[in-house]
């Protein structure tokens, strides 16, 4: 508890960010409320936490299936179109915090292909922790372009089905 005891740890952890920001893997919970937002046009952003290149979010319905104490995970639609950031095996979407002012970041589900070093031979193999990793902060105009469904307070998924 004494902060002095934590000091050595800080040397190793200084690059990491605590709390509700930063590129971190999160444990999620099922969201009890059905929420969506719709992007009517592709959205362009700079992937500052990744390659630094300009990327596109696909238009379509983003659905919230999971939450954590800080925000909600809206899953991007699966697509084959390679021009979009979430296509092929890259799965994820947009993480929206609930604190005001709300903040939007991309997240990916850790599904990377690992290589198989077994004695049985080489080859590609799927791996990854399956956790959600929060990455690039999206510009503030994103919140204005994404049309969020009205939140139905207390509406559980059972009532919606």
């Amino acid at each position, binding site marked *: *508890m*004494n*902060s002095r005891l*934590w000091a050595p740890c*800080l040397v190793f*952890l200084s690059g*990491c*960010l*605590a*709390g*509700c920001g930063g590129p*971190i*893997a*999160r444990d*999620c*919970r*099922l969201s*009890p*409320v059905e929420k*969506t937002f*719709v992007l009517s046009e592709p959205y362009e952003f700079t992937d500052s936490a990744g390659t630094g290149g300009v990327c596109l979010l696909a*238009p*379509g319905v983003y*659905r919230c*299936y999971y*939450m954590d*104490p*800080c925000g909600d995970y809206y899953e991007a*639609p*699966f*697509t*084959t*179109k390679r021009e979009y950031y979430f296509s*092929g*095996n890259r799965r994820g979407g947009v993480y929206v915090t*609930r*604190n005001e002012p709300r903040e939007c970041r991309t997240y990916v589900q850790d*599904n990377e292909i*690992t290589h*198989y*070093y*077994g*004695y*049985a*031979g080489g*080859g*590609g*193999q*799927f*791996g*990854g*922790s*399956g*956790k*959600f990793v*929060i990455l690039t902060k999206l510009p503030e105009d994103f919140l204005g372009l994404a049309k969020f469904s009205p939140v139905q307070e*207390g509406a*559980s*998924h059972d009532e919606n*089905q």
Partner: protein
Amino acid sequence: MRTNRMVVVLLWAVLAAGCATKPIPVSPEFWGHTETKVAIAIASLPQEGRVYREGHQGLLDMIITNAMDPGEARCARMLTAERFANITEIFRRELEKAGYKCVVYSEPIELEAAEEVSHDKDCFDRDLSGVFQQTGCDTLMLLQLVGFGTARTYYGFTPQSDPKGCAVVRGLMIARSENEILWDSGRKEGMIREPVIGPWAQEPDYPNLTGAVERAIEKSKKFLLERFFEERLGVDALDGIDMHAGETPEQKKLAETLAHYMQGVETTSAVWMSCSKPYRLTQNCSFWTGAAFRISLDGVEAKIAGSEDGTVVLIQGPKLTTQQTWALDSAFGAIATLFEKHEIHITKVVGAAMPDGTFWGYFLLLDKDGYSLLREHAVSKE
């Protein structure tokens, strides 16, 4: 015998990964010909779930992990894939909305039993002419749950992660003439993983892990729909996908409680906190471990510390060393429910976050003394 079978399956998986096909998107021409009559069928479902072991494993490691028979393997053998079967109806509804005439082929197709006909990479390699004849259709939509079960990462024979729910799907559209493949969702792409919500090792039924597998199967249906229809998919098309499949009543109640209270949780760094900051905790706060007073509420254990007037409460899970997320959430849910009953209002929740983003504890700010109430539920001496 089971070990041998697992080794064969894993070898097959390695070989299959090398000859995986690339996805083939639906041709724009298909969408222009609504007179096309489409048969929709599923391939026969796997009889039981499977364990997908990922990561760096040699043959000896595989044999050891098979012999250990960890819990996820027992769970996988209990699972069935029946919930995948309604995918045909969902596709039929969406295709009919788009103007196509559809026939759902009622019998699952035994692909292994079908005659092998072609090795052309653009053509389907099994003879399904019987299906075309029976349905009188021009194209066949074949939806296949290739496998399902649990996925876990290993290094050698040591698990590197908790198991996840897993489903592997592939969708194909095949033309009657020449068996040409008109759409292929891909062999590699259709692997869906779902996290387990809460602890997974719950013998004998493994409800949380089973739930994750069920959600993976549901999400595999979503994957096929989105891959086929892409931007043509209606907003309500996914309403039939039950992303809360396998959710236990406890999970549901807890999620509702968390969603109610966690409307923007502020965070503080657990690295910098102490018994005097960010809040002065004078009751049961330990120099070494934080909250030190152990309580139990309806079987949910937690550790607490409090401010002098009892209006600030620090809650932590019962153990310091293990994965705490579910235990901490459960403790929060039980305490919030108790406070609701006694009309003690939580005015603010502040999460104490570790550098990896996991929460180590929550500070609850209350409108009156709630700490004294919690102390009535002590399970051990201070």
